């Protein structure tokens, strides 16, 4: 029997992945352990090794399409095995998931002709929603059986329809709304060339923007793609399909902002002592020999110290180092600090584990490594999943103060503004100090106001008395 090469599950809540690149071609000889392909998951890229040695055949998992976890993407035939022994039926090329095709097909703004494979997603080999893990994934729309059937019959892509039912569930009314909107991502099986002409005739007009069945006060609720697109002239925009990271970010942020009762605490911290200590520590860094010549063994940033201070503050106020669950409070024993890293196309939050126990130089070195691998999308899931709090720093842009969105399962996130010279009043005199405003967002279910304030005060004390971070 040839060995199946499956799309592995490399991420806890991964349901689908895209193969971004094959390293071996059809018919190539591969050795067990060779890098066979690279997959892009929601947040990372990962290289996958060949599970066996032999000849690579029937490469059905094409690059750049969403493929459910567990589906065979190729086969490896042992050298003495006759090619063609397995049934051909299993090896039809994997069709892209409907969501992917529909968004791609709208590039250029034209409404594409109906396609049989688009209309019947469940008939595609290997990607029936009932198989594998896909049913549990958040990337598969939550929908009622009726909505699913109607979408199936109309050839609509469920994941492109935003559900107005409980928990974002797509219900019949959402399908009806999608079908009645003039442009719905161009995926309706009913849309033909005539349909396209009809769409043009229905191009935005003022009457169109307040249909009678929609609330008249303010803007009508924007549900699907069609509702948004109809507000803009055709050709006046370009459609960029979402990659997995963008979808994950959108889903998680909506979840966070709709389910977590956020509240915010802001405090100013004076940085002068911290900056002085940082200069002193960096100046004392031993020299390390590398290919690029001699470099200091470490170079602390203000952010490294913020991470450490946040971790120690959580240690000092352990009740705030928590995660909310419905039945119990999860009280963490360590402070694992996630750090928001901006990367092309989105952001990711790698985690400094047990930051409370790590030295500043360890945190600094680890952070540089995590950030650089985050940018090349090479983080492992365990490096960005979990954590007990997070730090988001926009100080480098000169942002004075902002409020960040909590990243579940965290109960807090610290938004860090720029350190800048400000006039401060001390003992009746105006003095100049370097001041940084920080805003703590907390999940009120887990951290109440006074507790959050206690945490923030502990943080401020460490920032303003930074020697405390060295002991």
């Amino acid at each position: 029997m040839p060995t199946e090469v499956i799309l592995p599950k490399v991420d806890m809540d991964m349901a689908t992945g895209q193969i971004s690149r094959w390293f071996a071609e059809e018919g190539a000889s591969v050795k067990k352990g060779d890098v066979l392909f690279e997959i892009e998951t929601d947040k990372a890229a990962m290289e996958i090794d060949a599970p066996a040695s032999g000849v690579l055949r029937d490469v059905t998992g094409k690059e750049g399409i969403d493929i459910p976890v567990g589906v065979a993407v190729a086969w490896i035939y042992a050298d003495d095995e006759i090619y063609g022994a397995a049934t051909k039926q299993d090896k039809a090329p994997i069709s892209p998931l409907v969501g992917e095709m529909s968004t791609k097909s709208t590039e250029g703004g034209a409404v594409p002709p109906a396609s049989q494979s688009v209309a019947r997603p469940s008939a595609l080999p290997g990607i029936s929603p009932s198989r594998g893990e896909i049913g549990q994934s958040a990337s598969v729309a939550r929908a009622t059986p009726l909505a699913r059937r109607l979408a199936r019959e109309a050839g609509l892509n469920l994941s492109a329809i935003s559900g107005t039912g409980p928990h974002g569930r797509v219900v019949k009314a959402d399908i009806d709304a999608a079908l009645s909107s003039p442009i719905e991502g161009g995926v309706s099986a009913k849309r033909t060339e005539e349909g396209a002409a009809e769409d043009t005739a229905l191009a935005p007009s003022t009457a169109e923007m307040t249909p009678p069945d929609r609330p008249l006060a303010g803007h009508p609720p924007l549900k699907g793609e069609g509702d948004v697109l109809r507000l803009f002239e055709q050709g006046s925009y370009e459609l960029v399909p979402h990659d997995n990271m963008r979808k994950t970010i959108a889903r998680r942020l909506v979840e966070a902002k709709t389910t977590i009762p956020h509240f915010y605490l802001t405090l100013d911290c004076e940085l002068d002592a911290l900056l002085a200590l940082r200069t002193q520590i960096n100046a004392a860094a031993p020299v390390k020999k590398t290919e690029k010549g001699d470099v200091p063994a470490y170079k602390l940033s203000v952010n490294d110290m913020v991470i450490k201070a946040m971790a120690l503050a959580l240690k000092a106020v352990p009740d705030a180092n928590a995660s909310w669950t419905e039945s119990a409070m999860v009280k963490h024993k360590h402070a694992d600090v996630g750090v928001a890293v901006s990367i092309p196309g989105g952001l990711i939050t790698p985690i400094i584990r047990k930051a409370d126990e790590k030295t500043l130089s360890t945190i600094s070195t680890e952070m540089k490594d995590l950030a650089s691998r985050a940018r090349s999308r090479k983080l492992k899931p365990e490096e960005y999943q979990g954590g007990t709090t997070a730090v988001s720093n926009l100080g480098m842009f000169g942002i004075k103060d902002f409020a960040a969105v909590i990243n579940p399962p965290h109960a807090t996130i610290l938004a860090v503004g720029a350190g800048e010279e400000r006039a401060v009043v001390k003992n009746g005199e105006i003095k100049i100090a370097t001041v940084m405003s920080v805003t703590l967002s907390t999940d009120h279910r887990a951290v109440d106001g006074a507790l959050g304030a206690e945490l923030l005060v502990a943080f401020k004390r460490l920032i303003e008395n930074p020697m405390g971070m060295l002991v």
Partner: protein
Amino acid sequence: MDAMVRELSYAQAIQEAMAIAMDMDECVFLMGEDIGVYGGAFQVTGDLVDRFGSERVIDTPISELGGAGMAVGAALTGMRPIFEFQFSDFATLAMEQIVNQAAKMRFMLGGEVSVPVVMRFPAGSGTGAAAQHSQSLEAWLGHVPGLKVIQPATPYDAKGMLLAAVADPDPVMIFEHKLLYKMKGPVPEGYYTVPIGKADIRREGRDLTIVATSIMVHKALDAAAALEAEGIDIEVIDLRTIRPMDKQTVIDSVKKTSRLMCVYEAVKTLGIGAEVSAMIAESEAFDYLDAPIVRLGGAETPIPYNPELEKAVVPQVPDIIAAARDLVKGVR
């Protein structure tokens, strides 16, 4: 010629049905504890002993197992006994005769005999009779192939279904809610039957199907009337028979309304609501569901004696209103 229709209570309708059956067929007779001179624990048999004599309206000793055994034995010989339990709770004492004998004979004897016994069970809570006299055990018997189990909700059905039960060749278990006995409704004179195994759509609607049994049918109808003012249009199905269940009526209704709620007084877990829900999930109606299925049933506790608590542990009209509103408005 149309039969004259009068207002009778549920208990009177049952009594009339038994009298008609006894008039029509001398094989029909009644047995039960205190059903003779006393007229029955809930006065359902009333003065029938005066009309038919103590040989056809028989007071049995206080042994449900013995009485049920006599009834099953009489049915095996070709008689058509109607056996009254004082409380459905005491069915537990007669389980051997009901489950192991009455339900099995036809099958184990190759269809050579049948057991045309009718057993009547005053059931349900609301009379302050406490935990051992207030249960709704119909699902217990509904689980047994070989039995037919019915729960008439109106005087009309109580009479028509009892007459259908007497005519039925198999053992039929009738669960009569005690609070229904005094409820009045139109009942035609004379003989008629209401088929066993056929549900009744008590009210048509398009937003939600409520499948209810026994007294809950009336509570569901009250809830539906209240919600009409809010523009919520509820279909109420009176299941009437729980074995054999009229699946098609429920399936067709759910296909129309896309939402299902089951309301029953028996303990919610492992009850009729579970059966109806699962039946719909397995049926063609699954693809028509636009909301989760909801069950409203009794609390997971023995029926309390305290009258306020007694009300609190079974679904009441406001509970049905709230649950139905949430379901239709998409809150759950």
